[in-house]
């Protein structure tokens, strides 16, 4: 039976079902965030709270969606992937169902902020990890296809308004909860698969010194992730150097989110005309989706290492943002939107593949958790910082400079990857000499 479970990453076949599930998860997770803006107005009328209080609900939901990543990793270790995903679905839909009986804003903070946030973190984390197990060569393309689900959510705003007009917000929340339950059958598609990790990542064996021990290494890294008794001293040392490269990516992710968070709404604020806003948003969505697909496909061709692409896109994002204050007329704003959407789509599609490349398959769970945690902190702190900058300077240029700098800073850590690799490849040499 063991022999049947160990299979090579499929890069297709049942993997496309996983892509479908990840697609649906992206749709729902993004839908929750976007439709919240519509419910915001409704809650303000109903409960007569201040914008700040109601804004907390959305902030908790968005922040927990990332920050609960480590928790999701732990629960996944305990329960397994399918149960965690189903648990996440029940949290999301249960949260929405209970919210329909809301009596006040603190109630909503728990039922519409905490519960769906946790649930979506579980869902997202599990889906991302399973897709890395199923895809290796086509990871970029498959992730990009799945992430294109985020672009579809612009259809959901009119749908939400329609539901609220028909059934009032209580009925609309109940129906959303029911629609979210559709993720249960799609979570059941997550068949467990155990894959061999072939040492084909960037940490290539530079010299022939490691090739002799190559077969032992591959045995050791065959992933039963909780198989700690097989990890020898070499395993531990590899873990440590992994940690180094991983921390770099994690911090870089945080930097991205710092930039990305406050930036999204600012574009809308800069253009005052409503029709322009709609144009910007729709063009941005379409361009970003297409750019993600192209970037994923290019990265999969492996012409150069994936993190180089990532670095390239991040730098371009930063430069675009730094130049953004120059865009004052409609054509310039449109050009900024399109360029930024192209580069943002490029790097978004590559987050997961780069993460997988820089870590071993086994540790994707934990590192994704760490990265999500830092991203969550950035998401929580980004908008208030941008708002403070605006209040202080009374223009939006400051926020754009801040966002551009964050992007550039996040690309800096990727420059250190070759250094980290060299340091890591030196470690086993030392170990081997001591063993001898």
């Amino acid at each position, binding site marked *: 039976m063991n022999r049947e479970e160990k299979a090579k990453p499929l890069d297709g076949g049942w993997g496309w079902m996983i892509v479908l599930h990840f697609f649906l998860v992206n749709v729902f997770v993004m839908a929750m965030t976007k439709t919240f803006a519509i419910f915001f107005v409704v809650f303000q009328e109903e409960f007569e709270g201040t914008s700040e209080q109601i804004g907390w609900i959305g902030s908790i939901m968005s922040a927990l969606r990332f920050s609960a990543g480590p928790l999701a990793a732990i629960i996944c270790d305990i329960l397994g992937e399918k149960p965690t995903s189903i648990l996440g679905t029940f949290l999301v839909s249960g949260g929405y169902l209970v919210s329909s009986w809301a009596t006040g804003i603190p109630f909503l903070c728990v039922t519409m902020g905490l519960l769906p946030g946790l649930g979506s973190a579980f869902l997202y984390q599990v889906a991302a990890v399973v897709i890395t197990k199923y895809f290796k060569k086509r990871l970029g393309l498959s992730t990009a296809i799945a992430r294109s689900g985020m672009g579809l959510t612009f259809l959901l705003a009119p749908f939400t308004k329609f539901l609220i*007009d*028909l*059934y*009032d917000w*209580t*009925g609309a929340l*109940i*129906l959303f909860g*029911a*629609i979210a*339950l*559709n993720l*249960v*059958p799609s979570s*059941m*598609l997550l068949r467990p698969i155990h894959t061999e990790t072939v040492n084909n990542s960037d940490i290539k064996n530079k010299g022939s010194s490691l090739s002799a021990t190559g077969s032992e290494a591959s045995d050791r890294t065959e992933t039963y992730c909780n198989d700690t008794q097989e990890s020898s001293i070499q395993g531990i040392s590899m873990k440590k150097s992994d940690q180094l490269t991983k921390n770099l990516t994690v911090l870089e992710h945080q930097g991205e989110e710092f930039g990305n968070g406050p930036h999204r709404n600012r574009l809308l604020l800069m253009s005052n005309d409503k029709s322009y806003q709609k144009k910007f948003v729709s063009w941005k969505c379409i361009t970003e989706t297409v750019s993600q697909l192209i970037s994923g496909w290019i990265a999969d061709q492996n012409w150069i290492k994936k993190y180089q692409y990532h670095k390239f896109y991040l730098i371009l994002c930063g430069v675009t943002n730094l130049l953004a204050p120059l865009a004052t007329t409609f054509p310039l704003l449109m050009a900024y939107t399109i360029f930024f959407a192209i580069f943002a789509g490029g790097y978004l599609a590559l987050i997961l593949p780069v993460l997988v490349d820089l870590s071993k398959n086994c540790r994707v769970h934990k590192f994704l958790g760490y990265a999500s945690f830092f991203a969550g902190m950035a998401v929580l702190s980004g908008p208030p910082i941008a708002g403070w900058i605006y209040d202080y300077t009374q223009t939006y240029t400051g926020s754009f400079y801040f966002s551009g700098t964050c992007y550039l800073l996040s690309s800096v850590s990727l420059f250190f990857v070759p250094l980290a690799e060299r340091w890591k490849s030196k470690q086993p040499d030392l170990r081997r000499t001591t063993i001898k």
Partner: protein
Amino acid sequence: MRSLTGPRAFVAPGCPLVLLCLLVATCPYRAEGDPTDSSFTSLPVREEMMAKYSNLSLESHNISLTEESSSPVEKNITLEKPSDLELLCQFTPSGDLNSVNVTWKKDGELLENIDVFNTTKVGNTLYSQYRFIIFNSKQMGSYSCFFDGEKELRGTFNIRVPGVHGKNKPLITYVGDSTVLKCECHNGLPLNWTWYTSNGSVQVPIDVHKNDKYVINGSYANETRLRVKHLLEEDGGSYWCRAAFQLGESEEHIELVVLSFMVPLKPFLAIIAEVILLVAIILLCEVYTQKKKHDPDDGKEFEQIEQLKSDDSNGIENNAAPRLRKNESVEQ
């Protein structure tokens, strides 16, 4: 004051007979109709009015017309309290000023008392001023000044009470809930508010004291809230809020829709049924594929057992060779 110069000139010599003649002469004006009624009664009564409404605010509104303005020029005036109103139209014709005639109309009817209007010419511009006191709702409406020269030009002053705003969309609630219908007035302070509900096509005022169902209150004078408790399906329908001012009333219509719980429950149950169906399909598929795996597995295990048996029988012969090799490595 200007309007009194004419008659006063006769009165000044102090002839009571002339006064009687004057009263008789002015009778036809009084009989004629409402539009001139106000302007005529303002003649002798004006000082009384000024005394009665001691703090009348002077509202002055201006329309300037040129020959290029093809569409009629309109100005909206909102008044809630009695005021001393001055409407001024000015027109600069390209041709001769003297050929232009000015007339005033209220809601299409000609205002005939020319003495109330003051038409002056300054340079090349013709000014026509209509000054009067508005103190009741009959005076509200559209006042227009007409200049008929080469082209007929019109300027209109729309005098209305402040409007009331409610919700444009129907208010959706559920049976057993309580809801609040809100009306507010942005431009003024109503004297009082009343709520009406519809009984067929008739407006029925809502009696707050009849039972505990309706409560009317408002935090500010320019808004009113009707709270309806223990909603039933019959409570759905049209509601009107009416704001009363000194110069008239304005009302707004609000639609209330009361749904029973079954209405959103049906799509909810439909979606749950669809989810359960999908789950059942996937479970069945998984059981089916697992069965398929087990059956060939049984076959495979059988084959493996056979192979092991044959290996065993062959292995006795091969055992010597590996043992030798092992001994060699140990020695090294």
